[in-house]
C-alpha cells in the first residue's frame, strides 16, 4: 500500500476493514458526481475518499422540477436519485476513477433488497472500488429509499445480505428521520456493517405564498447545509455512544471547525456535502485546516480527537458568544 498516511508528521490516516484511508475528509454522495465533472477545479487525489452519486441497477431520470430550493442556511432538494445506472458507471466513469489515488466508495440506492444485491454483485467484479455505502435513507423516492432506513429489521436484513456478498468495507448511511437513530446503527452493526454514515438529509418543506403551492415538485424534500449541522452533531453523538464501528459524520460541514466538532463527538471521519456546491475546494481547505489544528495543538495523531468530547459541562466556557 502506497497511501501517504503521515501529513507533515501528523498521522491523519485510519483503516476500515483493512482498507487504509489517507485522511479524514471525504466528499458526500450526490455532491461530487463521479469525480470527473469537478476535477478541473479540485485536486481530488488529496481527498480521503469520494462517495459517488447513488447508483441503482437501471438509470433513473429523477423527479420533475423544481428540485432545489434554498432555505435559511441550507437547501432543500428533491432530485430523486437521478443517476446513470451501474452499467454506465462501470463503462464510462469507473475507468477515470481508477486512475485516481484517492479511495472510491460507491454509494448504492435501490428499491428492493434484490436490487441492492445485484448492483453490489456487479461492482464486486470491478477493480478500483474501495468499498460501498448503502443508501437506505433517501427521502425523495417513492419505492425503497428511506422506507428501508426507517424499519430496523429491513436495515439489518439489507446489511446482512450484502455482507455475504463482499469482504470490502460496507457502510450504511442512515436517515435522521426516525425516533432513535442509534437503534438503526446498532441493527446495522449487528448485521455486519463496518461503518455508519450519519446523517442523510432531514425531511423539509417550503411553500410559495403567492401561489399557495409547495416549492418542490414532490412537496417535501431533503434539507441539507449548515442549517442541519447541530442536529447532525447530536445524531453522531447518539450513534457514537451506541456502536463501536467507525462513523462518517455528515451534515452542514462548512469549515475546519465544523469537522473538528464532528470528530470530537465521535466521528472517525467526515463527509462534506452541500458546501461542495458553494466552494468546490472546501474539502481540501478542511484537510489543510485539520493538519494545522493538530500542529497548533500538538496532536500527533488525528485519531486522538475522535470521541474526545469533554462532556463535563461544569467547566465549559462559552466563547465567541458576542
Amino acid at each position, binding site marked *: 500500500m502506497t497511501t501517504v498516511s503521515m501529513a507533515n508528521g501528523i498521522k491523519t490516516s485510519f483503516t476500515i476493514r483493512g482498507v487504509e484511508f489517507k485522511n479524514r475528509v471525504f466528499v458526500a454522495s450526490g455532491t461530487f458526481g463521479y469525480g470527473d465533472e469537478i476535477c478541473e477545479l479540485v485536486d481530488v487525489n488529496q481527498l480521503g475518499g469520494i462517495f459517488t452519486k447513488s447508483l441503482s441497477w437501471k438509470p433513473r*431520470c429523477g423527479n420533475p422540477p423544481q428540485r432545489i430550493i434554498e432555505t435559511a442556511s441550507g437547501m432543500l432538494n428533491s432530485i430523486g436519485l437521478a443517476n446513470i445506472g451501474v452499467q454506465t458507471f462501470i463503462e464510462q466513469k469507473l475507468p477515470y476513477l481508477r486512475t485516481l489515488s484517492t479511495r472510491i466508495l460507491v454509494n448504492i440506492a435501490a428499491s428492493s433488497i434484490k436490487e441492492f444485491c445485484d448492483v453490489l454483485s456487479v461492482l464486486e467484479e470491478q477493480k478500483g472500488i474501495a468499498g460501498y455505502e448503502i443508501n437506505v435513507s433517501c427521502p425523495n423516492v417513492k419505492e425503497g429509499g428511506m422506507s428501508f432506513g426507517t424499519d430496523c429489521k429491513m436495515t439489518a436484513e439489507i446489511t446482512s445480505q450484502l455482507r455475504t456478498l463482499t469482504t470490502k468495507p460496507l457502510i450504511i448511511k442512515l436517515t435522521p428521520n426516525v425516533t432513535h437513530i442509534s437503534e438503526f446503527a446498532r441493527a446495522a452493526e449487528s448485521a455486519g456493517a463496518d461503518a455508519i454514515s450519519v446523517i442523510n438529509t432531514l425531511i423539509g418543506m417550503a411553500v410559495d405564498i403567492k401561489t399557495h403551492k409547495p416549492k418542490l415538485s414532490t412537496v417535501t424534500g431533503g434539507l441539507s447545509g449548515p442549517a442541519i449541522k447541530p442536529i447532525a452533531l447530536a445524531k453522531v453523538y447518539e450513534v457514537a455512544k451506541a456502536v463501536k464501528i467507525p462513523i462518517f459524520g455528515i451534515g452542514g460541514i462548512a469549515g475546519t471547525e465544523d469537522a473538528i466538532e464532528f470528530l470530537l463527538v465521535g466521528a472517525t471521519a467526515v463527509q462534506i456535502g452541500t458546501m461542495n456546491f458553494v466552494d468546490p*475546494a472546501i474539502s481540501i481547505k478542511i484537510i489543510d485546516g485539520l493538519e494545522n489544528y493538530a500542529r497548533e495543538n500538538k496532536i500527533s495523531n488525528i485519531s486522538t480527537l475522535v470521541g474526545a468530547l469533554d462532556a463535563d459541562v461544569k467547566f465549559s466556557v462559552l466563547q465567541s458568544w458576542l
Partner: protein
Amino acid sequence: MNRTSMSSLVQQVGLVQSCHEVAAKTFLLRFNSPEIAASAEPGQFVSVLAAESGEGPLLRRPFSISRIEENIVELIFHVVGIGTNLLSRKQLGDWVDVIGPLGRPFHRNAEYETALLVAGGIGVAPFPFLTDDLVTRGQRIETFVGYRNAGQVFTDHLQNVRIATDDGSDGFHGNVVQLLEASLIQNNFGKVKIFACGPTVMLKALTELAQRMNVCCEFSLEGQMACGFGICQGCAVERRESAAKYALVCKDGPAFLSTEVNL
C-alpha cells in the same frame, strides 16, 4: 460533457472594476478575470457567490456573461433579492468569487441571413456578448427588447434595436413577441434564426411563433441550481424527444433549441 467549454473552467476571485445602475434596478458589474474572458463564449454563464463573511445566500447564483472587454467580464442583473442587492453594492477594489465559464453557448454557426435577438426584461443579459460575436462574423443582426416600462430599457452594445414596453412608455405598446411577429411580417430578413432570453411565458410564446413560422429558435434558460457544473442535478428541464427524460440547464444548456425542451 462539453469538454471544449469545460476545459478552461476556473474558480477565482476577480477584482471588481465597477458596478453601477444602468436602468431601473438594473446593474452592470465589471470584474477582472483574464481566464474567463479568454475562454467564454456567448450564452455561457458564471456562478457567483454573493455572500460575504456569512451574510447573504448560501448557494451561488448563475448569471449570463453579458460582455467581455479584454480581461474584463461584465454581468447585467436585476436587483430582486438579498444576493443581487449585495452584488449591486460592489465597487472598485472589491472582490467577487466566481466559477466559470459554464454551460453550452449559443450555436452561432447555423445557416441564416439575419440573427434576431429577442429579449424580455433582464433576459437582455447575454445579448451584448452575442452581438459582439455576431458582428465579428459579419452577421446581420436585428434586436427586439421588451420591458415593463421606459425606465427599465437597456440597449447598450446592441444593434438595430426595436423596443416594446408593456405600458407603451417607450417604443411599441405591447409585448416583444408581438413586436417581433409584426416585424417579421413587415420586413424581409431572409432566412432568420431567433436567439432569445427572457421569462418562461415569453419563451413559450416564441416557441409557438417559431413553430408557426417555421423558424429556428434557440433560447437561454434560467434554472435553479446548487452547483452550476452538472453535479447537483437540480436544474432539470424536460426534454421533448430523447431517451433521457430531463436535460440539465447548467450543462446541457443554458442554450437550447426551442424544439429540444418543454417549458
